[in-house]
């Protein structure tokens, strides 16, 4: 069985690079799929557009979602995920620079599983990525509905 993938939705190439580096430094070797805007992320998850024909039962172990995104912002993506039967229960971690109360409240209201503010200090950032990797990829058990969908 191949390792489950991680979907990173992030438009800033620097942040993509740093996130991937953090994964690598913490020995998290799962394949990371990068979507650079909200639409691309949805295409990947629903097997449309650029990802036409992709096996959509191959769902990521966790989705790392930035809020400020081109075309469709992070909260918009979250809303679409939660209203679709196949992606309803996927673990979503919001990973953002924003510390605005309103963003936190909206994120949790729409059903994100976790909310992490990206620290400027890379050491702290790396630690945060490590923690969430260990938790969401290694420890967390997916709901049975997801297991059924994968077969």
């Amino acid at each position, binding site marked *: 069985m191949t390792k489950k993938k991680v979907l990173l939705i992030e438009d*800033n190439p*620097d*942040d993509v*690079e*740093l996130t991937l*580096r953090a994964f690598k430094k913490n020995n998290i070797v799962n394949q990371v799929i990068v979507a650079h805007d909200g639409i691309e992320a949805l295409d990947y998850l629903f097997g449309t557009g650029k990802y036409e024909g992709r096996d959509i039962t191959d769902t990521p172990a966790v989705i790392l979602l930035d*809020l*400020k995104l081109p075309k469709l912002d992070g909260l918009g993506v979250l809303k679409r995920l939660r209203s679709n039967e196949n992606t309803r229960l996927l673990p979503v971690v919001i990973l*953002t*620079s*924003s*510390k*605005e109360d309103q963003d936190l409240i909206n994120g949790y209201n729409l059903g994100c599983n976790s909310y992490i503010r*990206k*620290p*400027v*200090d*890379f*050491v702290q*950032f790396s630690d945060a990525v490590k923690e969430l990797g260990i938790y969401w990829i290694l420890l967390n058990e997916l709901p049975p509905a997801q297991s059924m969908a994968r077969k």
Partner: protein
Amino acid sequence: MKTLKSFTGRITTGIIIINLFVYLMVGLSLYQLRITYDQQVELSTQNLARSLELSISKIIDKIDVALLGIVDEAEKQLAAGKINQQSLNAFIALRHKRISELDNMRMAKPDGLISYGSPAPAAPLQTIADREYFIELRNNPKAGLVISKPVKGRITGKWVLIVARRVNNRDGSFGGVAYGSLTLEYLAKMFSSIDIGKHGSITMRDKDLAIVVRHPETNGVCSNIGMTNVSKLFRELVESGQTSKTYKAIYPVDNIERNYTYRKIADYPLYINVGQAPSDYLAPWRKEAAAWILLSLVFTVVTLVSARLLHKQRKSEMLAMERLRSISLYTRNLIEASLDPLVTISKDGKIRDVNEATVNATGITKENLIGSDFSNYFTDPDYARAGYEKVFSQGSVTDYPLTIRHSSGNITNVLYNASLYKDEKGDVAGVFAAARDVTRLKQTEEEIRKLNEELEERVVMRTAELRKTGLELQDSQRALINMVEDLNGANDKLNLLNADLLRQKNAIEAANQELEAFSYSVSHDLRAPLRAIDGFSLAVLEDYTDKLDEEGKNYLNRIRAASQRMSQLIDDILGLSRLGRSEINITSVDLGELAAEITEDLKKIYPDRQVETIIQKGIMVKGDRRLLRIALENLFSNAWKFTNSRPEARVEFGVAKTDNGPVCYVKDNGAGFDEAYADKLFTPFQRLHSTEEFPGTGIGLTTVKRIILRHGGRIWAESEQGKGAAFYFTI
């Protein structure tokens, strides 16, 4: 219902006893009556037997006298030679005439031929030579009077009893027999004339107890003659020689039991026996008994029916009582449930009844209250009395103010509502009064009254002041008119300015919106490059460490430190800008408690610091708890920061009373600052110390000031370089 059961038991027992008694009494009296009847019938048979004996013996005596006369005459004629038939016949006829009971009187010659008599025998002469009595008299000169067994007359053909005597010749030899024939029919007639009941009997028997005459005759006329069938008892009694006896026996011929009395008829060999049957003489007793039994049964039925009715009535009474009791309990419970003291008062002012609330209000037990004077329990008894008297005279009172005195001395101000209540006949029974506790109402009234007084005073004062001012105003008025004219001119300018202000206000609102968008953008977009700078600097340090000398590494570290500091600055600026925009949520806040929480947190964050904290508790203010916490956090973390060089650091929080109201303070014994620059403390990004000495962004105190200002307070600081600082604020 228990009582109903016992009532049922009592009534049942009562009925059984009464009925038993009645039946016993009836039984006893019937028994007595029966005995009386028996005694009466014994007496009756005895009397009858005696009178019959007398009658019959008299008849026989009479016959005997007549016979003796005839015997004498016949013996006289025989002595004279021979009997003169004619004269003897005449003699006998004379005697016979006097004894109507006799069918005939005759005399037979020694050969037995009936030769003389009345009525005179006609030829051919009949003989009685074969008759027993003739033979006995012929053979026994001393036989005396002989009474025969019933015989059928040879001349008359009638059943008769022959009463006979011997006639002697002069020499004493047998000269014939003189006799009288007593017809049994006569006796039977005599017997039948006596009422001895349908089943009674009168019997005449001879010495062998053979029947001579019996009434009634069981099988027709004379059918019973000669029957010797008698009860064993009767025979034994006679054989034992008793001449008279009353007894009870069953006559074997007709099998009827009777009460008998028999008597021997004088010295004659005859017995008379009178018997009366219970079926006859007890008939009236039976009727009476039946009547009594019927009456008793009627009595039983009547008692049962009345008991049933009584029981029914009692049951419905008890049900009604039970209903009444539960209704009464319900109403009583309502009365007791009332929180208002309720009381009923009789016409003489005595308390009749009270509820629990009254007991509570007076502190006196219900038992002691009832019967005592209503007016006793008030501070003004006369006024209390006047109150209920007013109810009696006018029908009711409302909101009658009284003061109840509790036994402990406490007083309760109440308003009484009272009215008359009536008894079941509709007559006035007394006063029903309900009190309402108005202590609190009164207090409020008192306060309002005081406030009104103060207000009036103030109005008076103010009026005086105004009057004074009025005079001054008149002077000023003129000056004012002048000024108004000037102002009119200025007003035009003001209008222009107002329009300008409105424009500016709109511009500010637009700017605010922009600022908000800007802040959001700053928080995201300014941080991303900083993260890149920091991240890639670290990447270079890690990946190319062998290609960098110490200086290069130092520069990269400085780049990283600078970017992190800038990130902190961005956060602080954002926080400050949010302060101005967020809404204030006013509640009651304990600043002392907040201060204690914050210092506890600081002690946890800096476990290696030894800081003595003196926190005054219970400083209550009205404000936004979240904002006040931010302000105190800043003040305390400053105090913590500036005392870090002190081995005996001390931080104090409290409130001081001043002429201008309470002032809160945060004091420390830290580095302090030069008072000359005190006004710069609260300006953003202004710092009085180097970053190396005391790190910070210079936003903290600005934040504090903005929070205090938003609460309408003031903040200022006092210090002396090196001797600690004190921050004061009012809310």
